């Protein structure tokens, strides 16, 4: 069974190991510079691979369609999350907007883990999905901010700073930059660097997910901000967003792998790039809420339940 297969992959098992270690209060920890280095590496690797694949497959009009759809999802999905957070978790405007921004944006690690699983299941997503992911990272921040503060409350200087933060965010730049490099160099010039960026990928992903398991579980254990409605929404929003993403994928007529990847992007919530942007743009919002929901609830849910589920659903819905 594909779903069970996924859970038995070393990548997932290292995530579980990290989570168990943190739950048992082991002092196991991954040095912070290693975690940051691995995340840079993963972004460069998937950017390059995506670019090389597009260089081989050639541009398709689909690329533009899916990019537009991805950005539209990123802009729109916070509205859904915002409504649920306001009504069901009774969050104030400010915090609901802050959280909503995270759910409209994407989690790179969730995408990477999903791609890995899809590829092993014979449904490799199209290479351009990396670019789509990069494009989906930041529109949600704009929506989330407008929801949190109402329009027109940003001074010109603040708006400029926010736009820079959003467009020139390190992960967007690295993902799109590596994608373009992959596009420019093509398969042949990629070969000398493939041992690092392809052959080493899954192994290093294991170490990264070990760390994510530790961090997510520590966050869950130490969180003082979470309550039950928030935990429930941390599961419900990914399910709803994933369903919307799958619907859009079906409308666009995407193949199962590419469509599943788009749906997982919709389902995933940012916990690296967006928290930093939101801390700056909405310093009065409580980081305890948005970090705990996206990292400690939705991220593990997506890894352990969302991806295996998507592996089952995608061939049926999009097959």
């Amino acid at each position, binding site marked *: 069974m594909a779903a069970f297969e996924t859970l038995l992959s070393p990548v997932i098992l290292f995530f579980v190991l990290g989570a168990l270690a943190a739950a048992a209060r082991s002092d196991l920890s991954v040095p912070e510079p290693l975690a940051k280095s691995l995340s840079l590496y993963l972004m460069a690797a998937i950017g390059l691979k995506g670019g090389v694949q597009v260089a081989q497959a050639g541009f398709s009009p689909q690329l533009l369609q899916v990019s537009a759809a991805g950005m539209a999802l990123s802009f729109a999905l916070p509205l859904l999350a915002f409504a649920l957070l306001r009504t069901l978790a009774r969050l104030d405007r400010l915090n609901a907007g802050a959280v909503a921004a995270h759910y409209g944006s994407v989690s790179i690690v969730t995408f990477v883990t999903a791609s890995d699983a899809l590829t092993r299941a014979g449904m490799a997503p199209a290479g351009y999905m990396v670019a789509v992911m990069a494009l989906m990272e930041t529109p949600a921040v704009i929506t989330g901010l407008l929801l949190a503060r109402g329009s027109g409350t940003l001074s010109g200087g603040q708006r400029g700073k926010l736009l820079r933060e959003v467009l020139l965010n390190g992960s967007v730049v690295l993902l799109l930059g590596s994608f373009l490099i992959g596009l420019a160099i093509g398969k042949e010039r990629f070969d000398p660097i493939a041992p690092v960026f392809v052959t080493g990928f899954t192994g290093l992903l294991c170490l990264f997910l070990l760390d994510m398991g530790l961090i997510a579980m520590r966050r869950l254990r130490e969180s003082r901000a979470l309550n039950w409605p928030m935990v429930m929404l941390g599961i419900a929003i990914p399910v709803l967003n994933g369903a919307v993403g799958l619907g859009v994928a079906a409308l666009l007529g995407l193949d199962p792998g590419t469509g599943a990847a788009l749906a997982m992007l919709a389902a995933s919530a940012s916990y690296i790039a967006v928290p930093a942007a939101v801390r700056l743009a909405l*310093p009065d919002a409580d980081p305890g809420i948005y970090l705990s929901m996206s990292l400690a609830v939705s991220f593990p849910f997506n890894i352990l339940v969302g991806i295996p589920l998507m592996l089952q659903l995608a061939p049926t819905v999009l097959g």
Partner: protein
Amino acid sequence: MIQTFTRKRIDILVDAPLCDWLVEHAAAAGIVHHSVLPVESGLGRTGPWRDEGFGTVAKRMFLALTNEDKAAALLERIAPHIERYGLVVALQDVQVVRGERF
């Protein structure tokens, strides 16, 4: 003994993403020179945190030596935000050499 001057040492614990914001306020208060030290972990009203790369908002220690007026100006500027931005501010007398620099 070499001559020293009494000035202010101002230590502010600040979220890393807000560090630039603080630096701008300091500059606006006339405090252009400063240093930033890493902080590893801590415990406050919002619970424990640890700089693990992801999943927490890391913190930094902003440190400036300056004169009394500028220190007061900075305090005045950031006062409305201290509570909500989670700043921790400490002000001390300090002896410096070359007082004209500060």
